[in-house]
């Protein structure tokens, strides 16, 4: 079997079979449950338009997926280094890029599980409204490259870091820097800086697309520029992870 698939399969078994991985998925489900409950029971949130609630849910699933990717990516190489399991892997016939891609396979599985966990919550808050199918499709279309980009970034940093913490902190910082402006009010986002950030920020591109498709019922052709931003983000972080893999130290 191809080393990439072997590594991905082993990593996924660890994610889905180990207590640590299951605890993460349970925690993410709990966050979605609490959010869903707030949409139903909170006086102000329950007054939101159905499409707005679906958009918020999409943003939350994407953010949680990115957080999971950052955690998995930071641990991917630096964690192996800390646990002294990296050297046997580097001494096997697997190339360093195979190791990186195998680990990304695990991140893809993590995101897929996150996506599947999110679907019933989306259905619960959006089944009575419009564009639920589009919401699910756009979560896959924009969420997957965005989340994998965060995974590549964290994994690239992990390849260069001596400890998990050294990779986790800058990766989380990147997540906050890219995800933070999206949470800011409309006045900032309509300012010159906010508008520029919205155009180049892949996180904002994904969230704005969710908004445009679910609330305003826009077509895919209107979202191509935003999709390009997200794909450029994925390509840039993948290139960073690849260059970090070739200089992976022991």
């Amino acid at each position, binding site marked *: 079997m191809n*080393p990439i698939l*072997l590594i991905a399969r082993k990593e996924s078994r660890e994610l889905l079979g*180990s207590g640590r991985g299951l605890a993460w998925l349970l925690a993410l489900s709990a966050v979605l449950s609490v959010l869903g409950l707030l949409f139903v029971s909170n006086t102000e949130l329950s007054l939101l338009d159905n499409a707005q609630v679906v958009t918020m849910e999409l943003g939350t699933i994407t953010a949680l997926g990115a957080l999971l990717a950052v955690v998995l990516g930071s641990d991917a190489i630096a964690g192996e280094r800390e646990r*002294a399991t990296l*050297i*046997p892997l580097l*001494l096997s*016939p*697997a190339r360093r890029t195979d190791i990186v891609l195998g680990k990304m396979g695990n991140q893809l599985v993590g995101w897929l599980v996150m996506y599947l966990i999110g679907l019933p919550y989306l259905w619960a808050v959006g089944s009575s409204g419009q564009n639920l199918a589009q919401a699910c499709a756009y979560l896959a279309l924009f969420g997957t490259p965005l989340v994998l980009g965060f995974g590549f970034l964290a994994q690239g940093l992990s390849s260069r870091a001596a400890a998990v913490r050294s990779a986790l902190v800058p990766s989380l910082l990147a997540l906050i820097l890219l995800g933070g402006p999206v949470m800011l009010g409309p006045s900032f986002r309509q300012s010159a800086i906010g508008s520029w950030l919205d155009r180049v920020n892949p996180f904002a591109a994904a969230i704005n697309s969710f908004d445009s498709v679910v609330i305003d019922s826009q077509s895919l052709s209107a979202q191509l520029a935003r999709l390009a931003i997200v794909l450029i983000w994925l390509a840039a972080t993948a290139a960073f992870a690849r260059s970090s893999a070739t200089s992976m130290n*022991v």
Partner: protein
Amino acid sequence: MDVDVDGLTLTLGGRPVLDGVSLHAQPGEIYGLLGPNGAGKSTTLSVITGLRRAASGQVSVVGHDPAREALALHREIGVLPERSGFYDWMDAPDYLAWFAQLYGRRLTGPEITAELAQVGLDGRNRRAIGTYSQGMRQRLGLARALLHRPRLLILDEPTNGLDPRGRREVHNLLLERSRQDGVGILLCTHLLDDVERLCTRIGILHQGRTVFEGALSELATASNEGESYRLHLRTEPPAVPLPPGVELLAWQGEWARIKLDGTRPPEDVWRGLLAARWPIAEIHQEAGGLETLYLRMTQKEEGPA
């Protein structure tokens, strides 16, 4: 040649870690790599296995340049690193089966059991590796290194954490692999007993340089000590010149350490000293074991404190 290393240098963090390492191990030979802590043994192994690139020098391992042909090299060598981690959530059969697949081997249940049995582990034991003792982990690491039938084994402290019986079993396994299958072994260890029992030739590293390389029997000559003795004297000896071929090394209380250059039989020397009125009460030949020779060799390189 299985390992052919010449003039290896490497600087890490501005400090020269390797400064002229040379090793030459023949196919099928068990070669011991010795040296005090910080001598550069593990760094040398990391260059030999392709994990690091040397700044200068020539390296060829089983015909491959580790810096350029790491993947081809990794198919032909089995390595047990000094600090070898495992996926603690797996059990040993799963772990070996997974690693075997990385090497393109698909092992059956009985094959896995046999692989584990050769290092003294029970293949029916499905306990998670995380619950293993240090000795069991060491054995599993050895099984992993042997898994793909390598031409050369590179073992860093392979008997660490093993009890005397376990050490003897590992010695026998390595000797069997070397004699029956012609597997070359590069053994890096602190345990001189391992070296005396297993190795045909050794290399000694000190402060990043090779200070000795050759057969164990050549070490005594290379240490340039000749035959040395300790003489117990009843009183102070007379102030007369020593007979030819005798060098006084040190006074230690009532004991004199002397070295004979081998040009005269020791009996002649003792007669000469007694004739010169040396009050000799006892004569002891100093132990010339590997440990003594190793210590002399590394102390000599350090020079006087």
